[in-house]
């Protein structure tokens, strides 16, 4: 109920403090899942209030731990959204917890996308989308820390690959944004981007342009404007690799190897044909 009234400015600060502390206790000490869930969602709404933000700051590690435990027990989009609010409000303090959180979000995502949509009215799918949104927000918050971002990139890589498949298409916009961030912030000009990341480049080209048998282009054709930012970043950060052969293990036809630039022009041709 305090969450519902979080827009209200209560004049009695002691009352506000007691309410926030009470909700925090419900989240961290209560053993009943519904109570913890309500407290987690309510606290995220209370973060609109500066007093609540300051009160909860020292307990942030405990709150993160509680959220992670709760997400293991409940598949709730509302809960994941609440976690996202915490990551947004405390973006500057999330660095030390980033690896743990992203690892958990990746595990949650893998588990949630494997749940049949008929079994839970799509709640798991919405929660999975929430995991991706939360991960993107956290990566955005950590983008100044290159060493950390490199570590996060390794953890997130399977999800980025899944995002380029038909099953992961619901999250394609977030996935493209994350690819852009990883390429832009993890790479120094003149240093090669790893072959695994270039594989995302090829994958993105493929789902945008499609193949010869796709009369309407790839299944992600409508996201071309967003994908262009990723392409630009790859080319700008690593022009040398762009002109070289696609890594052997990722060549579609090893008998006729192509370069990334050839692959790109082929995709452009295909997009122009489809557009006309």
């Amino acid at each position, binding site marked *: 109920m305090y969450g519902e009234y979080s*827009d209200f400015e209560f004049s009695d600060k002691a009352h506000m403090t007691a309410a926030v502390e*009470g909700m925090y206790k419900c989240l961290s000490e209560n053993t009943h899942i519904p109570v913890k869930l309500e407290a987690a969602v309510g606290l995220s709404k209370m973060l609109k209030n500066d007093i609540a933000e300051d009160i909860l700051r020292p307990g942030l590690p405990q709150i993160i731990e509680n959220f992670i435990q709760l997400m293991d027990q409940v598949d709730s989009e509302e809960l994941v959204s609440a976690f996202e609010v915490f990551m947004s409000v405390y973006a500057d303090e999330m660095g030390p917890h980033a690896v743990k959180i992203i690892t958990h979000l990746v595990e949650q995502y893998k588990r949630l996308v494997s749940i049949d949509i008929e079994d839970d009215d799509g709640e798991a799918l919405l929660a999975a989308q929430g995991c991706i949104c939360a991960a993107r927000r956290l990566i955005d918050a950590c983008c100044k820390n290159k060493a950390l971002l490199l570590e996060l990139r390794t953890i997130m890589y399977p999800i980025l690959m899944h995002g380029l498949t038909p099953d992961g298409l619901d999250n394609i916009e977030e996935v493209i944004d994350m690819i852009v961030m990883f390429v832009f912030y993890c790479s120094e000009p003149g240093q090669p981007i790893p072959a695994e990341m270039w594989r995302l480049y090829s994958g993105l080209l493929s789902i945008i342009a499609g193949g010869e048998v796709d009369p309407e282009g790839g299944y992600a054709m409508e996201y071309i404007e967003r994908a262009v930012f990723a392409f630009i970043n790859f080319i700008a950060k690593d022009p040398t690799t762009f002109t070289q052969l696609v890594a052997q293990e990722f060549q579609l036809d090893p008998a006729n190897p192509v370069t990334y630039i050839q692959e790109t022009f082929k995709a452009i041709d295909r997009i122009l044909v489809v557009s006309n």
Partner: protein
Amino acid sequence: MQEFKKLRACGKKAKSPKDVKPVHLVPFLTYADTNLREYTAKVTSGEPVDWRIKEALLLLVGHLADEIDRFPDIRNNMQDFFKTHVIQELSSQ
């Protein structure tokens, strides 16, 4: 996916015209306050109580947040309501 979002959007509350105080709003809040006080008095004196009445009233008042927010005279009284009826719920078992 859009279907789910549409369904959820349908659940949003319709708002009454701006600046027109719904005639039942204040009487309902008074009713809720009175009943919650009676509930607390019974708990204090050890009489049997039906906690579902309290839960239902608090839930309904929670749903009225947007409506109440539009009227400063009512909004200003909500702090007392919270102090009297809500805050102790955070420490109840």
